[in-house]
C-alpha cells in the first residue's frame, strides 16, 4: 500500500520545559509570557536536564508546578542567597531565580545587590509590575509616583513614601554584574527582544561570565483594575517613561558572545 507523503511543519508548541498544566495566574497576566520565554530559551539551549530554579515568594511562588525541571522555593527575597548556595555546591548546573519586585527590590534588596556584586554565576528574571500582586496590590518599591495601590490609596506620595527604585540602573553600577538589561512584555516586538535578552543572560551563566539579570516590565490587570489590553497601554504610557527599556550593563565578554 502506498500513501501520500505528509509534510508537517510544527510552528508553535508547548516548550518541553513548560509543564502541561493550567496556571493559577489571573487572566491577562504576563507571568505566563515570561514563563514561556524562560522555557523556550531553556529548550533551545538544552538546559532542562541541568537546570535548577529558585522560586520566590509572590505570585510566582508556584512556578515549580509550571516548569519541568528541579526547583526549590526560597523565603521572601532570599532567592539569590539560596541560588548562591546551590551554585556553589553544584557549579556545573544552571541556576535561575525568578523574582517579583516586592521580593527582589524590597525585602530581598541586600541579597540581590550582594549576589550581583559577588558576580555570582546565576541568572535572575526580575518581574516588575509596579505592585505587590499576590497580597492584593499594595505599594511596591517600583510603584510609580502618584500610582494608586491598596496601601497608597491616594496615589504614591513621594514626600511621604519616597521614590521608586530603578533596579537595573542601580545594579549596573556594580563591577561584579555582567549583564543587566530591562525589557518589556507589552507587545510582540518587545516580547521578542525580551526573549533574546533571556537567551543572552542564560548564555552568560553557561559560559561562566557571571551575574546576569533581565528585568521584565509586566502588567497586573487584576490589581491595576484595568483590562489586559488597557494594562498594556498603561505600561507603555506610564512605566516605560520611568523605566526605560535598555541595556544597563553588558560586560565586554558578554558583548563578544556569538549566540
Amino acid at each position, binding site marked *: 500500500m502506498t500513501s501520500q507523503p505528509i509534510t508537517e511543519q510544527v510552528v508553535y508548541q508547548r516548550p518541553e520545559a513548560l509543564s502541561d498544566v493550567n496556571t493559577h495566574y489571573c487572566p491577562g497576566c504576563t507571568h505566563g509570557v515570561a514563563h514561556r520565554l524562560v522555557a523556550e530559551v531553556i529548550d533551545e539551549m538544552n538546559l*532542562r*536536564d*541541568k*537546570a*535548577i530554579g*529558585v*522560586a520566590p515568594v509572590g505570585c510566582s*511562588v508556584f512556578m*515549580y508546578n509550571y*516548569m*519541568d*525541571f*528541579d*526547583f*526549590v*522555593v*526560597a*523565603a521572601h527575597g*532570599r532567592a539569590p*542567597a*539560596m*541560588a*548562591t*548556595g*546551590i551554585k*556553589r*555546591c*553544584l557549579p556545573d*548546573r*544552571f541556576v535561575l531565580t525568578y523574582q517579583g519586585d516586592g521580593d527582589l527590590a524590597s525585602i530581598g534588596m*541586600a*541579597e540581590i*545587590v*550582594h549576589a550581583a556584586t*559577588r558576580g555570582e554565576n546565576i541568572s535572575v528574571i526580575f518581574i516588575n509590575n509596579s505592585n505587590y500582586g499576590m497580597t492584593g496590590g499594595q505599594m511596591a518599591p517600583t510603584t510609580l509616583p502618584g500610582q494608586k495601590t491598596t496601601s497608597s490609596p491616594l496615589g504614591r506620595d513621594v514626600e511621604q513614601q519616597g521614590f521608586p527604585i530603578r533596579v537595573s540602573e542601580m545594579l549596573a553600577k556594580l563591577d561584579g554584574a555582567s549583564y543587566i538589561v530591562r525589557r518589556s512584555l507589552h507587545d510582540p516586538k518587545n516580547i521578542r527582544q525580551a526573549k533574546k535578552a533571556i537567551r543572552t543572560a542564560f548564555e552568560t551563566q553557561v559560559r561562566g561570565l557571571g551575574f546576569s539579570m533581565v528585568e521584565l516590565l509586566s502588567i497586573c490587570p487584576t490589581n491595576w483594575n484595568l483590562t489586559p489590553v488597557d494594562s498594556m497601554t498603561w505600561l507603555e504610557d506610564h512605566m516605560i517613561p520611568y523605566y526605560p527599556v535598555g541595556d544597563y550593563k553588558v560586560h565586554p565578554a558578554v558583548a563578544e558572545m556569538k549566540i
Partner: protein
Amino acid sequence: MARQLMKGNEAVAEAAVRAGLHAYFGYPITPQTELLEYLSRRMPELGRAFVQAESEVAAINMVYGAACTGSRVMTSSSSPGFSLMMEGVSYMAATEIPVVMINVMRGGPGLGNISPSQADYNQSVHGGGHGDYRQIVLTPGSVQESVDLTVLAFDLAEKYRINTVILSDGSIGQMMEPCELPEMQPLRGVSTEPWAITATMGQREHRMLSSIYLKVSDEEKTNIRILNRWRQIEANEVRFKEYYLDDADFAIIGFGSAGRVALTAVRQARAEGIKVGLLRPITVAPFPVQQVAELSKRVQGILVTEMNGGQMLDDVLRIVKGNCPVEFFARLGGVVPFPDEILSEIHRIAKGPLSVDVDPRSAWLDRMAAIVN
C-alpha cells in the same frame, strides 16, 4: 592521630572539614569569628565552597539552598546573629533537610556582650523560628567534645533530615585545649539522596523542595511527620554524661560550660565527703527526660545550674513534678560562675532544709540580690 592544642572555634572548623564539609556560609560575629576565618583559608585550599555572606539572613539562606542539594553544609554564628537566622531555620525545618549550625553563645538579650552565656537555650530547644518544629541540640563542654559533636552533628542531621545545632559558648569557642581530630573523610560527590535537588540530568523526573503546603491537610500531615520523627529521635538519640551519681544524695544538672564548672565543684565537694553528683546533658534536645525523672526519685534534691535565667530549669521542673526539691543557681549576662560559687550552693543544699514548695528561680533571685547590686 596525635593530640594538638587548638582553639575551640578552629577545632570545630577543622572537625567539620574532616567530616566532609562541602560548603560553609557565615558572617563575622564575636566570639565565633575564628571559625569563619579558619574556613576562609581552609575551604578554598581544598577546593570547597566558602562564602562570607552579606548578613546572617543571607548566610542561612545560602545554607538552605546548599542543603537542598544534599551536600554537607554548615554555618556558624553567635546569639544576635542566630536571631537573624531564625527565618531560614524555620524554612529548613519545614523542608526537612539536613543542616548543621554552630551557635557560640554570648551575653544577651539585644547586642549584649561578647562573653560566654547560655541564654539561647530556649531559642534552640523550644523554637526561635515560627511554626511547629524541633531540632537536635548538642552541648559541648570542652574543645574535644566540640570536635566529636561536630562530626556527630552531620551524621544525625542526615540520618533524620533535621536541623542540628551545636550550642556552644564564648568560653568553649575561645579556649585552647588539646584535642584529637578525626580522620579526613573523603568529600562525597553529587548527592544520590532521593530528595536532593541536583537537576534531573535527564535521569529522573523533576523534583521540588519547599516549605509551602497551601492545603492545610498537607501541612498538618507534614507537622505530624516532623513530630513523629522527633519521637524516634527522643527514643534513640538522648546523650548525657553522669559523674558520681551512683551513691549521690544530691544531684546537679548543668550543660556545657556550666556543667563543666559544676563538675569542678562536685569534685571538691566529694573531697569534703558530700555525696553529690552531676548529670550533664549532651543533647538538651532531645532532653534526657528519663534520666532526670529517675534521678528525681532517688536523690534528696536537685540543683540546676545554668548561665541563663533558668531556661533549662523549667524543663527540669516539668520532669521532676515535685518528686524532690529543685534548687537553682545561675550567673548570666556573660558572667561565668566560679566553682566556689557552686560549691557554696552545694554546701547550702547539703545543709538543708529543702522544700518542694519553694520556687527555685524566685529564691535564687532573692539570694542574687546580695551578690549583684
